[in-house]
């Protein structure tokens, strides 16, 4: 019987308490224990960014974070992005401009893109491409993703 750790955390503003083992990743706990399967597993080695979430405001790969490290932390995932039935502008633009195809990379890209626009509401195309360098997409290529982010940024700026 492995030692279990008692974790208290908030995910998307909701309080959670759970038990985990030391080697369980935040990604595993989100998907398999908390049933928040919007966060995707791509590579599980930090290369693809599909599992991107925010932990205490820092953008991380949840496959590279142990759940035990997040005791007391504030976690934000894709499930918290829409406001009820109202999609975030990034989500809407990804739908309108086909920024998503198979959808595995999309939650991670949306989380990463939101983090970018919070820091920089008017990024250049180059800035968007470098910011999203850690998020791999194998379907659309990147142009539609970049255009979706640019369109959402314009809307959010009211431009």
């Amino acid at each position, binding site marked *: 019987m*492995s030692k279990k750790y008692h974790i208290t955390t908030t995910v998307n503003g909701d309080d959670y308490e759970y038990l985990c083992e*030391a080697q369980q990743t935040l990604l595993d706990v989100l998907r398999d224990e908390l049933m928040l399967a919007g966060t995707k597993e791509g590579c599980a080695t930090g290369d693809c*960014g599909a599992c991107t979430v925010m932990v205490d405001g*820092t953008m991380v790969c949840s496959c*590279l*974070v*142990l759940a035990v*490290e997040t005791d007391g932390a504030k976690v934000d995932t894709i499930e918290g992005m829409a406001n009820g039935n109202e999609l975030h502008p990034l989500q809407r633009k990804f739908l309108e401009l086909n920024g998503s195809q198979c959808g595995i990379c999309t939650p991670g890209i949306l989380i990463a893109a939101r983090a970018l626009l919070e820091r920089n509401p008017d990024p250049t195309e180059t800035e968007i491409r470098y910011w999203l*360098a*850690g998020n791999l997409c194998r379907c659309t290529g990147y142009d539609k993703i970049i255009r979706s982010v640019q369109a959402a940024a314009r809307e959010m700026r009211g431009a």
Partner: protein
Amino acid sequence: MDVRYEAPETLQAAVALLAGATGPAKILAGGTDVIVQMETDLIEPSLLVDIKKIPELRQIAFENGGFRIGAAVPGMDIMGHKALAKAWPGVLDGVKLIGSIQVRGRASIGGNLCNGSPAADSVPPLIAAGAIARIIGSKGTREVPVEQIPVGPGKTSLASDEIIASFFLPARAPHSGDAYQRFTPRTEMDIAVVGVGVNLTLDKGGTCTAARVALGAVAPTVLLSKECADALIGSKVDDVALEKLAAAASAACRPIDDKRGTKEYRIKVAGVLAKRTAQQALEVARKS
């Protein structure tokens, strides 16, 4: 596998945990290497000592005209430090090339060094900068130049109960500059085929009075090359000196063949990249 996780709040407590470990223990900072190695069963620690709750390991402070960087400070925090960026742009260029923004949200220079990769991007510029690691263990504190820490791929000179607490980057002399460049097929999310860190100081007339050159990914450890430094010192970093530097850099390489490049290719690229990096460091020095 039963893994015990501890997150001590003092260095003394962390050292005591490591010293008292009955099985394999691993220090956890950003975890961007350690967690992958655990997931892929490359390592099977029975104890993880998370050092991120130790305040001094998470700070960047001014000290004696230089900087002390906590070993567990995430890369994104280092990149956001304006005074550090001005004094040591080469060190920051190395940090900036570690993984993605997600990875740099966690990855630290202490971890980048202790992972022991000869291709670690922050290590050549730290060595070129003359960075000194402060190491704490059961037997006390020692101050060690960064180049003495890696001893082979995945191996360091640290004892099992020792932790790197911080790195000291010294005060800058006038007209000093540093740079780091790496060669990779892609611009982001790649591992260096060759990396070069150059740090140099000019006198008022523009003659190089001091230089340190470190070569990454061309030997079992990152190399500090005296021959490369000697090619620059006493020169105006002109074409003749740069050719000597390139020859010295190529001669210093002891690379392997792998999927990223052959030995011959790495040896050639090391010379070209050493020149380019020295020119970049020169531009920085002239403006400072």
